[in-house]
């Protein structure tokens, strides 16, 4: 009997873990607000999950008050990034805060390296999305394409993400007005 109860628990656990990953991400992809973030992809190799394009957000610092920094340090460096959109339609982090906002658009992030300045102090933050998986054969081509779209004259690579209740999921990686897949 104990074996059978354990079996039921095992089935529930083994299905629930990947299913919970799926459910959370599906909900964000269906109900989240769309944002475009300028990015700088490179192409490392992850032996276990195949190739992916590693993503780095162009902006990695944002304003932060010293009061919020103290609170964030006590909260294991976890804080929130408030988002705004510039005149070209790209999203950017307007400010970093310690407390979860009651409204507006934001994402949860890890905040470190507080830099105090007389005018306005700031800190580094990590972007919640750091990879875009691709077919093993296509990832190197994707990198070459990115280089074409990252010259001084032409710099138009960005990622499209969806955000819901502070959680972020990537929807597509864009080069100009087309997704990277459409080039390959």
């Amino acid at each position: 009997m104990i074996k059978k109860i354990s079996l039921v628990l095992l089935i529930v656990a083994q299905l629930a873990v990947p299913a919970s990953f799926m459910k959370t991400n599906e909900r964000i992809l269906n109900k989240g607000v769309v944002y475009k973030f300028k990015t700088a992809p490179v192409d490392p190799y992850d032996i276990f999950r195949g190739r992916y394009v590693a993503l780095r957000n162009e902006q990695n610092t944002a304003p932060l008050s010293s009061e919020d920094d103290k609170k964030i340090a006590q909260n294991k460096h976890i804080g929130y990034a408030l988002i705004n959109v510039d005149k070209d339609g790209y999203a950017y982090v307007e400010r970093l805060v310690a407390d979860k906002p009651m409204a507006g658009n934001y994402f949860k992030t890890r905040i470190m390296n507080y830099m105090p300045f007389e005018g306005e102090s700031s800190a580094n933050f990590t972007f919640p999305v750091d990879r875009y998986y691709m077919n093993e054969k296509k990832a190197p081509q994707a990198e070459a394409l990115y280089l074409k779209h990252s010259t001084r004259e032409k710099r138009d690579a960005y990622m499209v993400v969806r955000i819901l209740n502070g959680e972020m999921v990537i929807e597509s990686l864009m080069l100009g007005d087309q997704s990277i897949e459409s080039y390959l």
Partner: protein
Amino acid sequence: MKLAKFVKWLNQELPKFVGMGFVSDGNAEKIRAYYRQELAAKGGINIVLGIFAVIGAICIGLGIILFFAFGWDDFSRFTKTCLAFAPLVISLALVSWAVVKEKSSFAIREGSSIFNILSVGAAIALISQIYHIPGTFDRFLLVWMLLSMPLVYIMSSTLAAVAYLIGISCWAGYAQNLGGNAILFWPLFAAVVPYFWKHLSADRFSMSSLWLSFATCVALSVGMGVSLEKVVPGLWVIVYSAFFATLYLAGKLWFDDGDGFWQRSFRNYGMAGLVVLSYLFTFNWVWQDVGWRYYRAGWGFQTAAGYMDYVIVAGMFVAAIVFLVHAAKQKRIFETAFGVIPIITVLCYSIASGSGSDDISAGIFSSYLFFLGGLCIYFGVREIRLDLTNCGILISGLVLLTRFLDSSLGILERGIVFMIIGTAFVFTNMFLSKKVKQEAVQ
């Protein structure tokens, strides 16, 4: 496998016995039938079937993944998600069928368990890939192993336990390497101990016990080192010397009546570990910058996790001493000489950390290892054992050539030393071979 070899031999010999009139045809057939049943009961045939089942499960799992990979990019997100779950659902159905129908065959238990473990890993990895979920490899391994561990008990699967031990060792390595700590290795390891103990108490030399013994030796060797936070540099020398001494002495005490190399895995693994470790300790770099004076803190070192280092050091050392005292009380000189390594290591560690000099500690171990080589030769000749004698000559020769002889020694002198060692090898082997033949005749 002893029984299998015996049955093979018996099947070859029985026709001769019948021909000579020792046994009748009918009795010979009865003997054959009896040993066929014995062999099946001991799991000889089952194990072969089990191995094929596991290989089959791995091939099917990999085949499914490659089949999906063929058209992966063309599938919708929904289809990809369904395909990621498919192997997991199939393997869970297989496991459920085995449990509900109470299938106890080795092949079904082990094959379906390995298939399930692979499909859990594949499902998590594929879902992460479909949704571009960020995360580190150590977290993936940890979730995978936690979800796989119950199989060990539900399916009574030894290979699942072995896979789990390999998995948690890899996790510990990655976790420590990525700046975290691997203290969790110990509770994760403890989770599989009752299963190991159950098999050991039932039959120390069963195939399951042997697999688990070897996997435990390897897992502990890896886990022991990587779970150390290393805030006090050099503590690993005490931990590993005590660990290998404990394995060796425990193996001698409880598994010495085993037959062959694999049935004495603790003893052999421990002894090999002690010799390799002692040779490493003859190098000066081991004893440089060790002790409290070089206490480390800051990024990459967690002071709280460092306390676990002291628990591990003390625990391993006490365990080694308990076994050593037992061996010494029984006047087992050979074992005591090997088992005393942790005490010599503590002495050398104290000298190196107290004086800051590494020469004395390296010198002590060079002399000690040379002594061990001599001891092996002495006992090897006395007990007419070629393996032990040759090991002794190798150890002594290695220490002599690499640690005692000055690097500026000329080619002629080196040549002479090589010739002396070679001659010792040839003559000792000739002498002992002759002795072995004489014993066999008598």
